[in-house]
Protein backbone atom coordinates (compact mmCIF):
# COMPACT_ATOMS: atom_id res chain seq x y z
CA UNK A 1 0.00 0.00 0.00
CA UNK A 2 1.39 3.36 -0.91
CA UNK A 3 1.57 6.21 1.58
CA UNK A 4 3.05 9.45 0.30
CA UNK A 5 6.09 10.58 2.22
CA UNK A 6 5.09 9.47 5.71
CA UNK A 7 7.62 10.12 8.46
CA UNK A 8 8.79 7.42 10.85
CA UNK A 9 10.94 7.50 13.99
CA UNK A 10 13.49 4.72 14.16
CA UNK A 11 14.61 3.12 17.41
CA UNK A 12 16.40 0.00 18.58
CA UNK A 13 15.08 -2.71 20.86
CA UNK A 14 17.18 -5.79 21.60
CA UNK A 15 19.51 -5.12 18.68
CA UNK A 16 16.85 -4.74 16.00
CA UNK A 17 15.59 -1.50 14.49
CA UNK A 18 11.86 -0.64 14.59
CA UNK A 19 9.83 2.24 13.23
CA UNK A 20 6.90 4.15 14.62
CA UNK A 21 4.87 6.64 12.58
CA UNK A 22 5.89 10.16 13.57
CA UNK A 23 2.93 11.60 15.44
CA UNK A 24 2.24 15.14 16.59
CA UNK A 25 3.37 14.44 20.14
CA UNK A 26 6.19 11.97 19.40
CA UNK A 27 9.30 12.59 21.49
CA UNK A 28 11.97 10.72 23.40
CA UNK A 29 12.62 11.22 27.10
CA UNK A 30 14.46 9.54 29.97
CA UNK A 31 12.32 7.80 32.58
CA UNK A 32 13.61 8.71 36.02
CA UNK A 33 11.32 6.50 38.05
CA UNK A 34 8.50 4.15 37.11
CA UNK A 35 5.75 3.46 39.64
CA UNK A 36 4.31 -0.04 39.19
CA UNK A 37 0.54 -0.60 39.01
CA UNK A 38 -1.15 -3.61 40.60
CA UNK A 39 -3.12 -6.19 38.60
CA UNK A 40 -2.32 -4.98 35.08
CA UNK A 41 -1.00 -6.61 31.91
CA UNK A 42 2.62 -7.70 32.32
CA UNK A 43 3.61 -5.53 29.36
CA UNK A 44 2.68 -2.46 31.41
CA UNK A 45 5.71 -1.38 33.44
CA UNK A 46 3.94 1.36 35.35
CA UNK A 47 3.50 5.13 35.46
CA UNK A 48 6.00 7.92 35.19
CA UNK A 49 5.83 11.70 35.21
CA UNK A 50 7.26 13.87 32.47
CA UNK A 51 6.62 17.52 31.55
CA UNK A 52 3.43 17.74 33.58
CA UNK A 53 2.00 14.54 32.13
CA UNK A 54 1.38 11.08 33.56
CA UNK A 55 2.73 8.50 31.14
CA UNK A 56 1.87 4.81 31.08
CA UNK A 57 5.16 3.06 30.39
CA UNK A 58 5.05 -0.06 28.23
CA UNK A 59 7.63 -2.81 28.09
CA UNK A 60 8.44 -2.88 24.37
CA UNK A 61 10.39 -6.13 24.64
CA UNK A 62 7.28 -7.86 26.05
CA UNK A 63 5.10 -6.40 23.29
CA UNK A 64 7.51 -7.71 20.66
CA UNK A 65 7.80 -11.05 22.46
CA UNK A 66 11.54 -10.66 23.06
CA UNK A 67 12.99 -12.34 26.08
CA UNK A 68 15.55 -9.71 26.98
CA UNK A 69 16.04 -8.43 30.48
CA UNK A 70 14.49 -5.01 30.61
CA UNK A 71 16.84 -2.31 31.93
CA UNK A 72 15.88 0.49 29.57
CA UNK A 73 15.39 4.07 30.67
CA UNK A 74 14.68 5.80 27.35
CA UNK A 75 11.04 6.16 26.39
CA UNK A 76 9.39 6.96 23.09
CA UNK A 77 6.32 9.01 23.93
CA UNK A 78 3.10 8.76 21.93
CA UNK A 79 -0.52 9.62 22.60
CA UNK A 80 -3.52 7.40 22.05
CA UNK A 81 -7.12 8.27 22.97
CA UNK A 82 -5.88 11.37 24.84
CA UNK A 83 -3.67 9.21 27.06
CA UNK A 84 0.14 9.37 27.08
CA UNK A 85 2.17 6.21 26.57
CA UNK A 86 5.90 5.57 26.62
CA UNK A 87 7.64 2.67 24.90
CA UNK A 88 10.86 1.60 26.62
CA UNK A 89 13.62 1.41 24.03
CA UNK A 90 17.38 0.80 23.89
CA UNK A 91 18.54 3.46 21.48
CA UNK A 92 17.17 6.44 19.57
CA UNK A 93 17.84 6.38 15.81
CA UNK A 94 16.95 8.72 12.94
CA UNK A 95 13.67 10.01 11.63
CA UNK A 96 13.08 8.85 8.06
CA UNK A 97 10.56 9.52 5.34
CA UNK A 98 9.12 6.53 3.49
CA UNK A 99 6.95 6.66 0.42
CA UNK A 100 5.86 3.02 0.58
CA UNK A 101 5.02 0.43 3.18
CA UNK A 102 5.17 -3.31 2.55
CA UNK A 103 3.52 -6.24 4.24
CA UNK A 104 5.20 -9.41 5.49
CA UNK A 105 2.51 -12.09 5.32
CA UNK A 106 4.63 -14.52 7.32
CA UNK A 107 4.25 -12.37 10.44
CA UNK A 108 1.16 -12.49 12.62
CA UNK A 109 1.41 -8.98 14.04
CA UNK A 110 3.34 -5.84 13.10
CA UNK A 111 3.41 -7.13 9.51
CA UNK A 112 4.01 -3.77 7.87
CA UNK A 113 7.50 -2.58 7.20
CA UNK A 114 9.40 0.15 5.41
CA UNK A 115 12.72 -0.09 3.65
CA UNK A 116 15.58 1.90 5.13
CA UNK A 117 18.82 1.56 3.17
CA UNK A 118 17.48 -1.69 1.67
CA UNK A 119 16.82 -3.13 5.15
CA UNK A 120 13.35 -4.13 6.34
CA UNK A 121 12.28 -2.05 9.30
CA UNK A 122 9.01 -3.24 10.85
CA UNK A 123 6.47 -0.68 11.96
CA UNK A 124 5.15 -0.62 15.51
CA UNK A 125 1.70 0.87 14.94
CA UNK A 126 0.18 2.17 18.21
CA UNK A 127 -3.22 0.74 17.30
CA UNK A 128 -1.74 -2.78 17.05
CA UNK A 129 -0.05 -2.53 20.46
CA UNK A 130 -3.48 -2.98 22.10
CA UNK A 131 -3.77 -6.41 20.49
CA UNK A 132 -0.91 -7.47 22.75
CA UNK A 133 -1.38 -5.17 25.73
CA UNK A 134 -4.89 -5.62 27.06
CA UNK A 135 -5.83 -2.10 28.07
CA UNK A 136 -8.70 -1.26 25.72
CA UNK A 137 -10.84 -4.42 26.10
Amino acid at each position, binding site marked *: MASKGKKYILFKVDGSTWAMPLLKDSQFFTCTEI*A*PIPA*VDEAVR*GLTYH*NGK*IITVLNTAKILNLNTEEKKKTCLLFTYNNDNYGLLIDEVKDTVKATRTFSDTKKKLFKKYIRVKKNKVYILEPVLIWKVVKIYD
Partner: protein
Amino acid sequence: MISQKYKTFYLGTAKKQLKKLSSLLLSLEKNPEGGILIENIFRLVHSMKGAAATMAYKKTVTFLHALEDVVEAAYHKQLSIDQSTIDLLFKTTESLEKNLKSIAKSNKEINLSKETRDLKNCCKHKTSKQIVKRTKSIVDDVHLDVEISVAPNKLNTLQNYLDDLLINVMKSKALAQKEGDAEMLSMAVSTDTIVNNLRRELERLRIVPLSDVLSSLPYLVRSIAKNENKQVELNIKDNDLSLDKSILDQLVEILIQLLKNAVAHGIQEGQRNGRVDLEANLLNDQMQIIVKDNGQGVKWQEILDKAIKKKVISRAKSKKMTLAQIKELIFMPGISAAKASNIVSGRGMGLSLVKNKVEDLDGDINVDSSKKGTTFTITIPLPLSIFRSFNFQLGQFNMAIPLLYVNKVVKLKKLKNFYNTKTFDYKRSKYKVISLAKKLDMPDLKALAKYVALLKYKDTKLALPVYSNVNDREVVMKKSPHILKSLDYIKGVAVASDGQVILILDINNLI
Protein backbone atom coordinates in the same frame (compact mmCIF):
# COMPACT_ATOMS: atom_id res chain seq x y z
CA MET B 1 -7.86 36.31 5.76
CA ILE B 2 -9.54 38.03 8.71
CA SER B 3 -12.75 36.01 8.38
CA GLN B 4 -10.95 32.68 8.54
CA LYS B 5 -8.78 33.76 11.43
CA TYR B 6 -11.76 34.68 13.57
CA LYS B 7 -14.13 31.91 12.45
CA THR B 8 -13.52 29.79 15.55
CA PHE B 9 -14.11 32.74 17.81
CA TYR B 10 -17.26 33.69 15.90
CA LEU B 11 -18.65 30.15 16.11
CA GLY B 12 -17.95 29.90 19.84
CA THR B 13 -19.68 33.20 20.54
CA ALA B 14 -22.58 32.51 18.15
CA LYS B 15 -23.28 29.14 19.80
CA LYS B 16 -23.46 30.80 23.22
CA GLN B 17 -25.72 33.53 21.82
CA LEU B 18 -27.97 30.93 20.26
CA LYS B 19 -28.30 29.11 23.58
CA LYS B 20 -29.17 32.38 25.25
CA LEU B 21 -31.73 33.12 22.52
CA SER B 22 -33.41 29.73 23.06
CA SER B 23 -33.54 30.34 26.79
CA LEU B 24 -35.03 33.84 26.31
CA LEU B 25 -37.62 32.48 23.88
CA LEU B 26 -38.67 29.85 26.42
CA SER B 27 -39.20 32.61 28.97
CA LEU B 28 -41.11 34.62 26.38
CA GLU B 29 -43.38 31.65 25.71
CA LYS B 30 -44.32 31.66 29.39
CA ASN B 31 -44.61 35.44 29.55
CA PRO B 32 -45.52 36.85 26.06
CA GLU B 33 -46.05 40.33 27.48
CA GLY B 34 -42.51 40.56 28.86
CA GLY B 35 -41.29 43.90 27.49
CA ILE B 36 -37.83 43.52 29.05
CA LEU B 37 -37.56 40.03 27.63
CA ILE B 38 -38.33 41.28 24.12
CA GLU B 39 -35.82 44.07 24.57
CA ASN B 40 -33.18 41.54 25.63
CA ILE B 41 -34.00 39.35 22.63
CA PHE B 42 -33.63 42.37 20.38
CA ARG B 43 -30.23 43.24 21.87
CA LEU B 44 -29.09 39.67 21.42
CA VAL B 45 -30.27 39.39 17.81
CA HIS B 46 -28.66 42.75 17.09
CA SER B 47 -25.34 41.50 18.52
CA MET B 48 -25.61 38.30 16.49
CA LYS B 49 -26.25 40.33 13.35
CA GLY B 50 -23.24 42.53 14.06
CA ALA B 51 -20.98 39.53 14.52
CA ALA B 52 -22.25 37.89 11.31
CA ALA B 53 -21.69 41.17 9.43
CA THR B 54 -18.09 41.32 10.70
CA MET B 55 -17.57 37.85 9.27
CA ALA B 56 -19.29 38.84 5.97
CA TYR B 57 -21.96 36.12 6.31
CA LYS B 58 -24.48 38.03 4.17
CA LYS B 59 -27.35 35.51 4.23
CA THR B 60 -27.12 35.30 8.01
CA VAL B 61 -27.17 39.09 8.27
CA THR B 62 -30.28 39.36 6.06
CA PHE B 63 -31.99 36.62 8.05
CA LEU B 64 -31.12 38.20 11.41
CA HIS B 65 -32.24 41.58 10.13
CA ALA B 66 -35.67 40.10 9.32
CA LEU B 67 -35.73 38.51 12.77
CA GLU B 68 -34.82 41.86 14.30
CA ASP B 69 -37.82 43.39 12.48
CA VAL B 70 -40.16 40.81 13.99
CA VAL B 71 -38.78 41.36 17.49
CA GLU B 72 -38.89 45.11 17.10
CA ALA B 73 -42.51 44.96 15.92
CA ALA B 74 -43.31 42.91 19.02
CA TYR B 75 -41.50 45.46 21.19
CA HIS B 76 -43.64 48.29 19.78
CA LYS B 77 -46.78 46.17 20.25
CA GLN B 78 -47.30 46.20 16.48
CA LEU B 79 -47.14 42.41 16.53
CA SER B 80 -48.77 40.15 19.08
CA ILE B 81 -46.78 37.28 20.54
CA ASP B 82 -49.05 34.29 20.07
CA GLN B 83 -48.14 30.62 19.80
CA SER B 84 -47.56 30.79 16.03
CA THR B 85 -45.09 33.68 16.49
CA ILE B 86 -43.30 31.77 19.26
CA ASP B 87 -43.10 28.68 17.03
CA LEU B 88 -41.70 30.80 14.20
CA LEU B 89 -39.09 32.29 16.55
CA PHE B 90 -38.09 28.83 17.76
CA LYS B 91 -37.81 27.74 14.13
CA THR B 92 -35.32 30.55 13.56
CA THR B 93 -33.07 29.12 16.27
CA GLU B 94 -33.16 25.75 14.50
CA SER B 95 -32.22 27.41 11.20
CA LEU B 96 -29.44 29.37 12.87
CA GLU B 97 -28.11 26.20 14.46
CA LYS B 98 -28.04 24.43 11.10
CA ASN B 99 -26.36 27.46 9.61
CA LEU B 100 -23.63 27.48 12.28
CA LYS B 101 -23.01 23.77 11.74
CA SER B 102 -22.62 24.37 8.01
CA ILE B 103 -20.25 27.30 8.60
CA ALA B 104 -18.21 25.19 11.01
CA LYS B 105 -18.02 22.31 8.54
CA SER B 106 -17.59 23.98 5.19
CA ASN B 107 -17.45 27.71 5.91
CA LYS B 108 -20.65 28.06 3.83
CA GLU B 109 -23.94 29.51 4.98
CA ILE B 110 -27.10 27.54 4.28
CA ASN B 111 -29.86 28.94 2.09
CA LEU B 112 -31.97 31.02 4.47
CA SER B 113 -34.21 32.72 1.90
CA LYS B 114 -37.38 30.75 2.79
CA GLU B 115 -36.87 31.36 6.50
CA THR B 116 -36.18 35.06 5.83
CA ARG B 117 -39.37 35.24 3.75
CA ASP B 118 -41.38 33.60 6.56
CA LEU B 119 -40.14 36.24 9.00
CA LYS B 120 -40.95 39.07 6.59
CA ASN B 121 -44.42 37.61 5.95
CA CYS B 122 -45.01 37.39 9.67
CA CYS B 123 -44.34 41.11 9.94
CA LYS B 124 -46.53 41.94 6.94
CA HIS B 125 -49.51 39.84 8.01
CA LYS B 126 -49.49 40.45 11.70
CA THR B 127 -48.45 44.04 12.14
CA SER B 128 -51.08 46.73 12.07
CA LYS B 129 -48.76 49.14 10.26
CA GLN B 130 -45.48 48.83 8.46
CA ILE B 131 -42.45 48.98 10.65
CA VAL B 132 -41.13 52.45 10.70
CA LYS B 133 -37.67 53.67 11.31
CA ARG B 134 -35.86 51.78 14.05
CA THR B 135 -36.50 53.21 17.46
CA LYS B 136 -33.37 54.78 18.83
CA SER B 137 -34.05 53.73 22.39
CA ILE B 138 -33.37 50.04 21.68
CA VAL B 139 -30.55 50.28 19.18
CA ASP B 140 -28.54 52.85 21.08
CA ASP B 141 -28.40 50.69 24.19
CA VAL B 142 -27.02 47.68 22.40
CA HIS B 143 -23.61 46.64 23.61
CA LEU B 144 -21.41 43.67 22.85
CA ASP B 145 -19.89 41.58 25.63
CA VAL B 146 -16.25 40.92 24.92
CA GLU B 147 -15.14 37.40 25.71
CA ILE B 148 -12.05 35.39 24.92
CA SER B 149 -12.40 31.74 23.99
CA VAL B 150 -9.51 29.44 24.86
CA ALA B 151 -9.39 25.84 23.66
CA PRO B 152 -9.31 23.35 26.60
CA ASN B 153 -6.13 21.69 25.27
CA LYS B 154 -4.32 25.02 25.56
CA LEU B 155 -5.42 25.25 29.19
CA ASN B 156 -4.23 21.65 29.70
CA THR B 157 -0.77 22.53 28.34
CA LEU B 158 -0.61 25.58 30.58
CA GLN B 159 -1.69 23.50 33.58
CA ASN B 160 0.95 20.85 32.83
CA TYR B 161 3.69 23.51 32.79
CA LEU B 162 2.32 25.00 35.98
CA ASP B 163 2.28 21.57 37.65
CA ASP B 164 5.91 21.09 36.70
CA LEU B 165 6.72 24.50 38.17
CA LEU B 166 4.74 23.67 41.32
CA ILE B 167 6.58 20.39 41.78
CA ASN B 168 9.93 22.19 41.40
CA VAL B 169 8.88 24.76 43.99
CA MET B 170 7.88 21.95 46.38
CA LYS B 171 11.31 20.44 45.76
CA SER B 172 13.15 23.69 46.55
CA LYS B 173 11.02 24.10 49.71
CA ALA B 174 12.00 20.60 50.87
CA LEU B 175 15.68 21.31 50.04
CA ALA B 176 15.66 24.62 51.94
CA GLN B 177 14.13 22.85 54.94
CA LYS B 178 16.77 20.12 54.78
CA GLU B 179 19.60 22.62 54.51
CA GLY B 180 18.11 24.79 57.25
CA ASP B 181 18.36 27.90 55.05
CA ALA B 182 15.65 30.20 56.45
CA GLU B 183 15.99 32.86 53.72
CA MET B 184 15.73 30.34 50.93
CA LEU B 185 12.83 28.63 52.69
CA SER B 186 10.96 31.92 53.05
CA MET B 187 11.49 32.62 49.34
CA ALA B 188 10.36 29.11 48.39
CA VAL B 189 7.24 29.42 50.56
CA SER B 190 6.37 32.75 48.98
CA THR B 191 6.91 31.35 45.45
CA ASP B 192 4.84 28.34 46.44
CA THR B 193 1.94 30.63 47.40
CA ILE B 194 2.18 32.51 44.10
CA VAL B 195 2.28 29.31 42.00
CA ASN B 196 -0.59 27.82 44.02
CA ASN B 197 -2.65 30.94 43.45
CA LEU B 198 -1.82 30.82 39.75
CA ARG B 199 -2.92 27.21 39.57
CA ARG B 200 -6.15 27.94 41.40
CA GLU B 201 -6.87 30.84 39.04
CA LEU B 202 -6.21 28.55 36.10
CA GLU B 203 -8.55 25.97 37.57
CA ARG B 204 -11.14 28.67 38.03
CA LEU B 205 -10.89 29.49 34.31
CA ARG B 206 -11.97 25.94 33.59
CA ILE B 207 -14.88 26.06 35.98
CA VAL B 208 -18.19 27.15 34.51
CA PRO B 209 -21.57 27.46 36.19
CA LEU B 210 -23.87 24.52 35.51
CA SER B 211 -26.53 27.02 34.49
CA ASP B 212 -24.43 28.09 31.47
CA VAL B 213 -24.71 24.64 29.95
CA LEU B 214 -28.04 23.47 31.37
CA SER B 215 -29.86 26.57 30.10
CA SER B 216 -30.19 25.04 26.63
CA LEU B 217 -31.93 21.91 27.93
CA PRO B 218 -35.45 23.35 28.40
CA TYR B 219 -35.49 24.17 24.70
CA LEU B 220 -34.34 20.66 23.85
CA VAL B 221 -37.08 19.13 26.03
CA ARG B 222 -39.67 21.43 24.49
CA SER B 223 -38.59 20.41 21.01
CA ILE B 224 -38.62 16.64 21.76
CA ALA B 225 -41.97 16.92 23.52
CA LYS B 226 -43.40 18.76 20.54
CA ASN B 227 -42.21 16.03 18.17
CA GLU B 228 -43.73 13.40 20.46
CA ASN B 229 -46.93 15.42 20.70
CA LYS B 230 -46.55 15.68 24.47
CA GLN B 231 -46.53 18.49 26.98
CA VAL B 232 -43.51 18.32 29.24
CA GLU B 233 -42.05 20.90 31.56
CA LEU B 234 -38.38 20.73 32.57
CA ASN B 235 -37.46 22.14 35.97
CA ILE B 236 -33.79 22.70 36.63
CA LYS B 237 -32.35 23.20 40.10
CA ASP B 238 -28.59 23.64 39.75
CA ASN B 239 -28.04 24.99 43.31
CA ASP B 240 -25.57 27.51 41.82
CA LEU B 241 -23.01 24.77 41.32
CA SER B 242 -20.09 24.96 38.91
CA LEU B 243 -17.96 22.28 37.34
CA ASP B 244 -14.85 21.82 35.20
CA LYS B 245 -15.87 22.60 31.61
CA SER B 246 -14.47 19.35 30.20
CA ILE B 247 -16.48 17.29 32.73
CA LEU B 248 -19.55 19.42 32.16
CA ASP B 249 -19.38 18.89 28.38
CA GLN B 250 -19.44 15.13 28.91
CA LEU B 251 -22.11 15.41 31.56
CA VAL B 252 -24.42 17.36 29.31
CA GLU B 253 -24.32 14.57 26.69
CA ILE B 254 -25.42 12.15 29.41
CA LEU B 255 -28.21 14.46 30.52
CA ILE B 256 -29.46 14.96 26.97
CA GLN B 257 -29.86 11.19 26.55
CA LEU B 258 -31.65 10.84 29.90
CA LEU B 259 -33.98 13.73 29.05
CA LYS B 260 -34.74 12.23 25.64
CA ASN B 261 -35.63 8.96 27.35
CA ALA B 262 -37.72 10.69 29.99
CA VAL B 263 -39.77 12.59 27.41
CA ALA B 264 -40.02 9.83 24.81
CA HIS B 265 -40.60 6.84 27.12
CA GLY B 266 -41.28 8.12 30.61
CA ILE B 267 -44.01 10.67 30.01
CA GLN B 268 -47.11 9.02 28.57
CA GLU B 269 -49.04 10.17 25.53
CA GLY B 270 -51.91 12.37 26.62
CA GLN B 271 -50.36 12.94 30.08
CA ARG B 272 -51.29 16.48 31.05
CA ASN B 273 -48.84 17.26 33.83
CA GLY B 274 -45.68 15.89 32.16
CA ARG B 275 -42.73 17.04 34.23
CA VAL B 276 -39.02 16.29 34.37
CA ASP B 277 -36.88 17.53 37.27
CA LEU B 278 -33.15 17.94 36.94
CA GLU B 279 -31.33 18.64 40.16
CA ALA B 280 -27.62 18.93 40.99
CA ASN B 281 -26.34 18.58 44.55
CA LEU B 282 -22.97 18.45 46.26
CA LEU B 283 -22.36 15.42 48.49
CA ASN B 284 -18.96 15.30 50.22
CA ASP B 285 -16.45 15.19 47.36
CA GLN B 286 -19.01 14.11 44.79
CA MET B 287 -21.59 15.79 42.62
CA GLN B 288 -24.97 14.14 42.46
CA ILE B 289 -27.29 14.76 39.53
CA ILE B 290 -30.87 13.55 39.62
CA VAL B 291 -33.10 13.27 36.54
CA LYS B 292 -36.63 12.45 37.64
CA ASP B 293 -39.80 12.17 35.55
CA ASN B 294 -43.41 11.72 36.63
CA GLY B 295 -44.17 9.30 33.82
CA GLN B 296 -45.32 5.71 33.67
CA GLY B 297 -42.18 4.14 35.17
CA VAL B 298 -40.13 1.23 33.87
CA LYS B 299 -41.92 -2.10 33.57
CA TRP B 300 -39.21 -4.37 34.94
CA GLN B 301 -40.93 -7.55 33.77
CA GLU B 302 -40.80 -6.25 30.18
CA ILE B 303 -37.08 -5.53 30.57
CA LEU B 304 -36.56 -9.04 31.92
CA ASP B 305 -38.54 -10.59 29.04
CA LYS B 306 -36.56 -8.64 26.49
CA ALA B 307 -33.25 -9.68 28.08
CA ILE B 308 -34.35 -13.34 27.85
CA LYS B 309 -35.52 -12.89 24.25
CA LYS B 310 -32.20 -11.28 23.31
CA LYS B 311 -30.39 -14.10 25.13
CA VAL B 312 -28.63 -11.69 27.45
CA ILE B 313 -29.75 -13.93 30.32
CA SER B 314 -31.36 -17.38 30.50
CA ARG B 315 -34.92 -17.89 31.75
CA ALA B 316 -33.57 -19.98 34.63
CA LYS B 317 -31.20 -17.19 35.67
CA SER B 318 -33.95 -14.58 35.38
CA LYS B 319 -35.91 -16.31 38.15
CA LYS B 320 -33.04 -15.94 40.60
CA MET B 321 -32.30 -12.28 39.84
CA THR B 322 -32.69 -9.60 42.49
CA LEU B 323 -34.33 -6.26 41.64
CA ALA B 324 -30.88 -4.61 41.75
CA GLN B 325 -29.62 -7.10 39.13
CA ILE B 326 -32.72 -6.56 36.96
CA LYS B 327 -32.13 -2.80 37.16
CA GLU B 328 -28.61 -3.33 35.80
CA LEU B 329 -30.13 -4.90 32.65
CA ILE B 330 -31.53 -1.56 31.53
CA PHE B 331 -27.94 -0.33 31.02
CA MET B 332 -27.00 -3.21 28.72
CA PRO B 333 -26.78 -2.69 24.95
CA GLY B 334 -29.92 -3.72 23.09
CA ILE B 335 -32.20 -3.62 26.12
CA SER B 336 -34.55 -0.70 26.10
CA ALA B 337 -37.76 0.18 27.85
CA ALA B 338 -39.28 1.43 24.59
CA LYS B 339 -41.60 -0.77 22.55
CA ALA B 340 -40.78 0.95 19.29
CA SER B 341 -37.73 2.87 18.30
CA ASN B 342 -37.94 6.34 16.85
CA ILE B 343 -35.56 9.08 15.88
CA VAL B 344 -35.23 10.29 19.48
CA SER B 345 -34.60 7.10 21.39
CA GLY B 346 -35.67 3.52 21.85
CA ARG B 347 -32.90 1.63 20.07
CA GLY B 348 -31.65 0.25 23.33
CA MET B 349 -28.24 1.86 22.98
CA GLY B 350 -28.89 5.10 24.83
CA LEU B 351 -28.65 3.91 28.41
CA SER B 352 -25.67 1.64 27.78
CA LEU B 353 -23.85 4.65 26.28
CA VAL B 354 -24.96 6.75 29.23
CA LYS B 355 -23.48 4.21 31.65
CA ASN B 356 -20.22 4.09 29.66
CA LYS B 357 -19.96 7.87 29.66
CA VAL B 358 -20.68 8.06 33.41
CA GLU B 359 -18.01 5.43 34.04
CA ASP B 360 -15.58 7.41 31.87
CA LEU B 361 -16.03 10.18 34.43
CA ASP B 362 -15.32 7.62 37.20
CA GLY B 363 -18.93 8.04 38.22
CA ASP B 364 -21.86 5.81 38.97
CA ILE B 365 -25.49 5.70 37.78
CA ASN B 366 -28.51 4.15 39.47
CA VAL B 367 -32.15 3.88 38.50
CA ASP B 368 -35.31 3.74 40.62
CA SER B 369 -38.72 3.40 39.13
CA SER B 370 -42.32 3.02 40.20
CA LYS B 371 -45.72 3.74 38.68
CA LYS B 372 -45.18 7.37 39.68
CA GLY B 373 -42.11 7.80 37.50
CA THR B 374 -38.43 7.06 37.03
CA THR B 375 -35.41 8.57 38.74
CA PHE B 376 -31.84 8.31 37.47
CA THR B 377 -29.17 9.28 39.98
CA ILE B 378 -25.66 10.03 38.74
CA THR B 379 -22.73 10.59 41.07
CA ILE B 380 -19.42 11.86 39.77
CA PRO B 381 -16.32 12.56 41.83
CA LEU B 382 -15.11 16.14 41.89
CA PRO B 383 -11.50 16.52 40.89
CA LEU B 384 -9.08 17.10 43.73
CA SER B 385 -6.15 19.33 42.87
CA ILE B 386 -3.42 19.96 45.45
CA PHE B 387 -3.65 18.27 48.82
CA ARG B 388 -1.60 16.65 51.57
CA SER B 389 -1.56 12.91 51.37
CA PHE B 390 -0.77 10.06 53.73
CA ASN B 391 1.76 7.95 51.84
CA PHE B 392 2.90 4.36 52.23
CA GLN B 393 4.21 1.43 50.22
CA LEU B 394 2.28 -1.74 49.61
CA GLY B 395 4.91 -4.11 48.31
CA GLN B 396 6.30 -2.33 45.25
CA PHE B 397 3.33 0.04 44.91
CA ASN B 398 3.37 3.72 45.97
CA MET B 399 -0.02 4.43 47.54
CA ALA B 400 -1.70 7.25 49.39
CA ILE B 401 -4.98 8.55 50.72
CA PRO B 402 -5.90 12.21 51.30
CA LEU B 403 -4.55 13.15 54.74
CA LEU B 404 -7.86 14.75 55.70
CA TYR B 405 -9.34 11.27 56.22
CA VAL B 406 -6.56 10.16 58.59
CA ASN B 407 -7.35 10.75 62.27
CA LYS B 408 -4.40 8.96 63.80
CA VAL B 409 -1.58 6.58 62.94
CA VAL B 410 -1.05 3.86 65.53
CA LYS B 411 2.38 2.23 65.68
CA LEU B 412 1.84 -1.42 66.57
CA LYS B 413 3.87 -2.89 69.42
CA LYS B 414 4.51 -5.99 67.34
CA LEU B 415 3.86 -6.89 63.72
CA LYS B 416 0.25 -7.95 63.27
CA ASN B 417 -1.52 -10.17 60.77
CA PHE B 418 -4.58 -8.36 59.38
CA TYR B 419 -5.19 -10.55 56.34
CA ASN B 420 -8.44 -12.02 57.64
CA THR B 421 -9.15 -9.54 60.43
CA LYS B 422 -12.44 -7.69 60.19
CA THR B 423 -12.19 -5.22 63.06
CA PHE B 424 -9.48 -3.40 65.00
CA ASP B 425 -10.06 -2.21 68.57
CA TYR B 426 -8.43 1.01 69.71
CA LYS B 427 -9.29 2.93 72.89
CA ARG B 428 -12.72 1.32 73.28
CA SER B 429 -13.65 2.00 69.66
CA LYS B 430 -14.09 -0.57 66.94
CA TYR B 431 -12.67 0.14 63.48
CA LYS B 432 -13.56 -1.76 60.33
CA VAL B 433 -10.36 -3.11 58.77
CA ILE B 434 -9.60 -2.35 55.12
CA SER B 435 -7.41 -5.21 53.98
CA LEU B 436 -5.60 -3.84 50.97
CA ALA B 437 -3.27 -6.83 50.91
CA LYS B 438 -6.28 -9.11 50.55
CA LYS B 439 -7.89 -6.88 47.93
CA LEU B 440 -4.71 -6.96 45.89
CA ASP B 441 -4.18 -10.65 46.61
CA MET B 442 -0.82 -10.17 48.32
CA PRO B 443 -0.80 -12.90 50.98
CA ASP B 444 2.98 -12.51 51.48
CA LEU B 445 2.29 -9.23 53.27
CA LYS B 446 -0.16 -10.73 55.72
CA ALA B 447 2.12 -10.86 58.78
CA LEU B 448 3.96 -7.62 58.26
CA ALA B 449 1.68 -4.73 59.24
CA LYS B 450 3.72 -2.10 61.15
CA TYR B 451 1.16 0.64 61.58
CA VAL B 452 -2.59 1.09 61.49
CA ALA B 453 -3.99 4.32 60.09
CA LEU B 454 -7.30 5.18 61.75
CA LEU B 455 -9.58 6.85 59.25
CA LYS B 456 -12.94 8.53 59.36
CA TYR B 457 -14.85 8.39 56.11
CA LYS B 458 -18.55 9.29 55.81
CA ASP B 459 -19.09 8.59 59.55
CA THR B 460 -17.48 5.17 59.27
CA LYS B 461 -14.46 4.33 61.43
CA LEU B 462 -11.88 2.48 59.41
CA ALA B 463 -8.51 0.91 60.10
CA LEU B 464 -5.97 0.68 57.30
CA PRO B 465 -3.04 -1.64 58.07
CA VAL B 466 0.22 -0.28 56.69
CA TYR B 467 3.22 -2.46 55.92
CA SER B 468 5.93 0.16 55.36
CA ASN B 469 7.17 3.44 56.76
CA VAL B 470 4.73 6.28 56.33
CA ASN B 471 4.92 10.02 55.61
CA ASP B 472 2.69 12.90 54.65
CA ARG B 473 3.45 15.04 51.61
CA GLU B 474 1.92 17.66 49.44
CA VAL B 475 0.89 16.18 46.10
CA VAL B 476 -0.60 17.41 42.84
CA MET B 477 -3.48 15.38 41.42
CA LYS B 478 -3.16 14.59 37.72
CA LYS B 479 -5.49 13.28 35.02
CA SER B 480 -6.00 9.58 35.61
CA PRO B 481 -4.68 7.40 32.78
CA HIS B 482 -6.94 4.82 31.12
CA ILE B 483 -4.94 1.94 32.60
CA LEU B 484 -6.32 2.76 36.07
CA LYS B 485 -9.98 2.72 35.00
CA SER B 486 -10.38 -0.99 35.69
CA LEU B 487 -9.02 -0.65 39.24
CA ASP B 488 -12.03 0.53 41.22
CA TYR B 489 -10.01 0.94 44.44
CA ILE B 490 -7.76 3.56 42.84
CA LYS B 491 -9.27 7.04 42.61
CA GLY B 492 -6.51 8.54 40.53
CA VAL B 493 -2.88 9.44 40.36
CA ALA B 494 -0.84 12.20 41.98
CA VAL B 495 2.72 13.47 41.76
CA ALA B 496 4.95 14.40 44.72
CA SER B 497 7.65 17.08 44.82
CA ASP B 498 10.34 14.61 43.72
CA GLY B 499 8.32 13.60 40.67
CA GLN B 500 7.27 10.32 42.29
CA VAL B 501 3.97 8.99 40.93
CA ILE B 502 1.55 7.90 43.67
CA LEU B 503 -1.67 5.90 43.35
CA ILE B 504 -4.47 7.54 45.33
CA LEU B 505 -6.85 5.03 46.89
CA ASP B 506 -10.61 5.31 46.64
CA ILE B 507 -11.77 4.64 50.19
CA ASN B 508 -15.39 4.45 49.08
CA ASN B 509 -14.65 1.38 46.98
CA LEU B 510 -12.49 -0.22 49.64
CA ILE B 511 -15.14 -0.33 52.35
